[in-house]
C-alpha cells in the first residue's frame, strides 16, 4: 500500500485545539469573535479532512509520526479509508453543530458559554485524533482526552442531576480507560507492536485463553463509550447535557468513537480470521444483538424525548457492532456505512429535540401533540430522520439495514435477520407515535396553530442534515464519498483476512 507522508492529519487535529485556546482567550466579552473562531475552525477542519479523501480513494494511506517513545511505541497518525470515513462524519457534522450550538446557547442564554465552546472544540480535536490514529496507543491517548474534554459538557448545567451525570460518566469511562491501558500494555508486551493492520495482527501471539481475555477487555473498554449493554447506563444519564452536546457527542463523536474502537479491535487488531478461529465472533454478535433488542424495548418506555433518543442510539450502535461481528463482507459494509447514516439521522433527531426545547421548552414525548403545525420544518425533519432510522427507503437507513440483512444471510445466521427486523419494528414503534401525535393530533393549548419556528440558526442545520439523509439513501456515494470509503475499507480487511 502506498504511503504518503504529510502533516495534514496533524493539522486536522490541531486546528480545533488552537481554536479552543483562542476561544478561551477571547472570552465572553467578545462573543461574536469567539463564535467566529468556532465556525472558522469547523470549516478549516472539514476542508483539511476532506482534502485527504481523494488520496485515500486512490488506495493510499497518509502517515505522520508525532513522536516515538520506544521501538514500536509511537504517537502516529495513519489515515486509512475507515478512519477517513469517521473523520469526514465528525468534521462535517461539526459545522452543522457549530451553527446550531450558537442558536441554542443564545436562544437559552446559557451560562459559561466560553467553557462550552472550548470543551466542544477540544472534543472535536480528540475525535479526529481518534479517527486518524495509527495504533492503539495513539488511539488511547486521544480516547482519554476525549473522555476528559466531554466532562465539562456533561456537567454544563451544574445542577445536581448534571453533576451526578458527570460523575457517572467519569466512573464508567475512566474505568474503561484503565482496562484499556492494561489490555494495550499487554498486547504491546506480547507482540511488540500496536499498529492497526487491516485483517488484524494478533494471530498466533498467545494462547487462545489470553487472546479471548484481551478481546473481552478491549471490547469492554471501547464498549463503554459505545453503550453496549450492560455498560450503557451512563449514556441516558448524560442526556442532561445541552442538546447540541447530546447531538454531536452522544450521537456522533463520543459514542461513535467507542464503536469505532470496537470495530478497530474486531477488524484491525484481532481480524476476522483470528476471531473465527477463537469462535468468539458469534458470542460478540449475540451480546450486541441483546443490546439491540433490549435498548429498543427500553426506548419504548421513555417519555423524555432525549432519553428515548439515547436508547435509540444505544440500539443503533449495537447494530453497527453486530454488523462487524458477523464478519462477512456485506455485514461489515452495512455496519460501517451505518456509522455515517446513523450519524446524520440521529443528529437530526437531536437537533429537533433541541429546537423543541428552545422554542417551546418541551422535553417530553407526551407534550408534542399537534406541534407539527407550529413547527413543520422541525417536525418534518424529525419525521424524515425517524423514518430513515426505521430502515424505510428512500432514506439512508435502508441502505445500511439492507446490507446488514444480507450479511446475516451470508453468515448463515438467520437469527440475526430477525434481530434486524425486530429492531426496525421497534424503531417504528417508538418513533411513529411521535410523528403521528405531532402532525395529526389536536394541538395542545399552548401550541400556536400557525407557523412559528425555532431560530434559523437551529432550523437550517437540522433541515440540511435531514435532506442529506434522504440524499444518502438515494445516492449513498454523494458528496462525502461514504460508500466508496466503506467499500475500500471492507476491501482492505477482506483482502487480508
Amino acid at each position, binding site marked *: 500500500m502506498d504511503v504518503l507522508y504529510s502533516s495534514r492529519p496533524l493539522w486536522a487535529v490541531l486546528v480545533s485545539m488552537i481554536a479552543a485556546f483562542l476561544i478561551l482567550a477571547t472570552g465572553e466579552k467578545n462573543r461574536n469573535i469567539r463564535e467566529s473562531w468556532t465556525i472558522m475552525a469547523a470549516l478549516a477542519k472539514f476542508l483539511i479532512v476532506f482534502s485527504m479523501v481523494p488520496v485515500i480513494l486512490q488506495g493510499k494511506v497518509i502517515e505522520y509520526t508525532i*513522536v516515538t517513545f*520506544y521501538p514500536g511505541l509511537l504517537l502516529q497518525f495513519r489515515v486509512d479509508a475507515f478512519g477517513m470515513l469517521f473523520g469526514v462524519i465528525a468534521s462535517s457534522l461539526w459545522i452543522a453543530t457549530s451553527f446550531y450550538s450558537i442558536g441554542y446557547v443564545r436562544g437559552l442564554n446559557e451560562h459559561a458559554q466560553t467553557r462550552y465552546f472550548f470543551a466542544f472544540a477540544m472534543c472535536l480535536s480528540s475525535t479526529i485524533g481518534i479517527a486518524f490514529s495509527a495504533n492503539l496507543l495513539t488511539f488511547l491517548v486521544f480516547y482519554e482526552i476525549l473522555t*476528559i474534554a466531554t466532562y465539562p459538557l456533561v456537567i454544563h448545567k*451544574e*445542577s445536581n442531576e448534571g*453533576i451526578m451525570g458527570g460523575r457517572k460518566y467519569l466512573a464508567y469511562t475512566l474505568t474503561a480507560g484503565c482496562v484499556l*491501558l*492494561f489490555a494495550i500494555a499487554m498486547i504491546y508486551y506480547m507482540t511488540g507492536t500496536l499498529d492497526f493492520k487491516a485483517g488484524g495482527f494478533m494471530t498466533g501471539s498467545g494462547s487462545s485463553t489470553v487472546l479471548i481475555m484481551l478481546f473481552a477487555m478491549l471490547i469492554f473498554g471501547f464498549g463503554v463509550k459505545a453503550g453496549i449493554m450492560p455498560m450503557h447506563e451512563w449514556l441516558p444519564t448524560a442526556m442532561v447535557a445541552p442538546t447540541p452536546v447530546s447531538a454531536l457527542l452522544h450521537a456522533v463523536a463520543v459514542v461513535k468513537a467507542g464503536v469505532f474502537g470496537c470495530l478497530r479491535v474486531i477488524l484491525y487488531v484481532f481480524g476476522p480470521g483470528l476471531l473465527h478461529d477463537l469462535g468468539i465472533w458469534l458470542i460478540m454478535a449475540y451480546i450486541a444483538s441483546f443490546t439491540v433488542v433490549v435498548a429498543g424495548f427500553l426506548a419504548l418506555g421513555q417519555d423524555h424525548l432525549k432519553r428515548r433518543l439515547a436508547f435509540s442510539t444505544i440500539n443503533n450502535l449495537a447494530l453497527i457492532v453486530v454488523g462487524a461481528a458477523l464478519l462477512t463482507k456485506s455485514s461489515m459494509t452495512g455496519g460501517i456505512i451505518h456509522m455515517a447514516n446513523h450519524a446524520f439521522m440521529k443528529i437530526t433527531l437531536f437537533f429537533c429535540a433541541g429546537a423543541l426545547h428552545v422554542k417551546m421548552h418541551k422535553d417530553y414525548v407526551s407534550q408534542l401533540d399537534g406541534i407539527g403545525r407550529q413547527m413543520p420544518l422541525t417536525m418534518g425533519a424529525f419525521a424524515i430522520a425517524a423514518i430513515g432510522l426505521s430502515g424505510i427507503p428512500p432514506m439512508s437507513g435502508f441502505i445500511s439495514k439492507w446490507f446488514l440483512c444480507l450479511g446475516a444471510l451470508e453468515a448463515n445466521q438467520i437469527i440475526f435477520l430477525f434481530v434486524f427486523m425486530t429492531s426496525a419494528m421497534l424503531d417504528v414503534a417508538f418513533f411513529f407515535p411521535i410523528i403521528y401525535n405531532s402532525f395529526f393530533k389536536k394541538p395542545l393549548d399552548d401550541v400556536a396553530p400557525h407557523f412559528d419556528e425555532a431560530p434559523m440558526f437551529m432550523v437550517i442545520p437540522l433541515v440540511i442534515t435531514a435532506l442529506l439523509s434522504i440524499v444518502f439513501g438515494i445516492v449513498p456515494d454523494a458528496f462525502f464519498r461514504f460508500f466508496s470509503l466503506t467499500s475500500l475499507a471492507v476491501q482492505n480487511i477482506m483482502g487480508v483476512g
Partner: protein
Amino acid sequence: MADQFAALIIVVPLIASIFVPVIGWWKKRLCYPWVVAVLVIPLISSLSVLNTVMTTGKFSYRLGGWAPPWGIEYMLDHLSAFVLVIVSSISLIVAIYSKKSVEDNLPEKTVPFYTLFLLLVTGLMGIVITGDVFNLFVFLEISALSCYALIAIGEEGAPMATFNYIIIGTIGACFYLLGIGYLYIATGSLNMADLANILPDLYHSKVILVAFAFFTVGLAIKAGLFPMHVWLPDAYCAAPSAVSALIAPLMTKVAAYVMIRIMFTVFQPHFSVEIVPVFVILGWLSVFAIFWGGIKALAQTDLKRMLVYIVVAEVGYIVIGVSVANRMGLTGAILHIMNDAVMMACLFLVVGAVLYKTGTRDIHQLRHLNKKMPFTMAAFTITALSMVGIPPACGFFSKWYLILGTIEAGQWVWAAALLCSSLINAVLFFRVIECAYLKPMEPAYAHNGGETTHEEIQRDEAPLTMLVPIVIMAAGVILLGIFSGKIISSVIQFAVPASF
C-alpha cells in the same frame, strides 16, 4: 572547567547558606534574591553535567584530588545527573515561589528559613551526587536536620509532628549507618564503585545480607514507604507552604534514588533479585502503600493533607517500578521520580497559593476559585489530570511503563493496584475540581452560606512570584509527557542497569 561543575553543585549552595545570616543581618530583604541567584548556579551546573554525561558517558569527580577509594568521589552517571537536574530545578522554582509565602507566614524567621533552605538543597543534591556511601549518610543527615527545623517553624502542631519525624527519621538514618558499618567491616571500603567490585565474592556472607536488610529498612523509612510512612503525613502537612513544596516532591524521591543506587549499583542487580527476596516484600508493601495512601486521602477534607497521603501512594508507584526489577519497570520508576516530583511540586505550590489568597485549605471552601484564580486552578486541573493518568500529561507515561514492567514480571496484582490507584486519584481530584469549578450541590453544602451565586466574582490571582512557578510547573507536566520518549531514549535507558 566542565568537570568542576560537579563540585559547584554542592559547594555553591553550602557556602552561600553561611552567607545568608550575614546578608540578613545587613539587609533582610536581600536574602530572597541572594538565594534565588545562588540556586541558579547548581541548575546550570547540573544541566552542564547532564550534557557532559550524555555526550561522553559517566565520569567521576575526586573531591580535593584524593584518589578513591580513600578520598570522596562524586559519581556522575546518567541516573545521578538526571536526578540532580530534577532536584536543582525544583528547588530553584520553589525558591522563587517562597517570597510571598515567607513574608506572609514567617516574617520574623526569614533569615533562618533561607539558611536552612539552602542547607536542605545542598543535602539533597549531595545525596544524589556522591559516590561514597558514608558521605551519602552525611548529606542525608544534613538534609534531614535542616528539614526538621524547617518543618518545625510551620503551623500549629508542627513541633509535635517534627518530633515524631526526628525520632523515626533518626532511626532510619541509624539503620542506614549500621548498614554502612557492616559493609565497612566486611570490605574495608566505603566507595560505591569499589564496593561493587568487592561485594560479589561476599554475597553469601551473613554480614552482607544483614547490611542489605539494614539499608532496605533505613531507606524505606526515609522514603516513607508503607508501613514506615507514619511520620510523613503530619510532618509534611504542618510545614510552611514553601517547605512542603520543596520536601514533598524531593525528599521521598531522593530516598527512592538512593534505594535504586544501593540495590543496583552497590549491589549487583542479580543479588537484589535472586539472593534476597526483598523485591517481593517491597512490591507488596507498595501495593498496600498505594491503597492505604489512596484511602486515607479520600477521607481528608483538607486539601494539603489529601496531597500528603497521595505522596504516600506515589512512593508506592516508584517502589513497585523498582521491585519488578526489569527494564520497563525501572524505566517507569525513574521516569516517575521526575514526573511525580514535578506534579507534586505543582500541586503543593497551588495549595500554598490558595492558602495565601483565601486563607483556607478546606476542599469545600474552594467554590468560585476558577473565577478568582483561573490560572492557578487551570494548573491544578492539568496536574490533577496528569495524576489520574490522562495523556498527554506526564503521569500517563510513567504509569504506562510501570504497567508494562508489572506485566513483564507477571505481577498482576501490582498492575491492578496501579490501575486502581488512577481511579482513586480520579475520585480524589474530581472531587476538588467539582468544588472549585461548579456550583455546590444544593442540599449537601447549604451550610456554606446561602448567598446567591450570581454575584460578580472578582479575579484575585496569586502574586506573580507564586503564579509564574505554578504555570512553569504545569507547562512542565504537559511538556515532560510529550517529550518523555526523548527523555527515555537519551537519558533513562542508560540509567537502567545494563544487565536488564
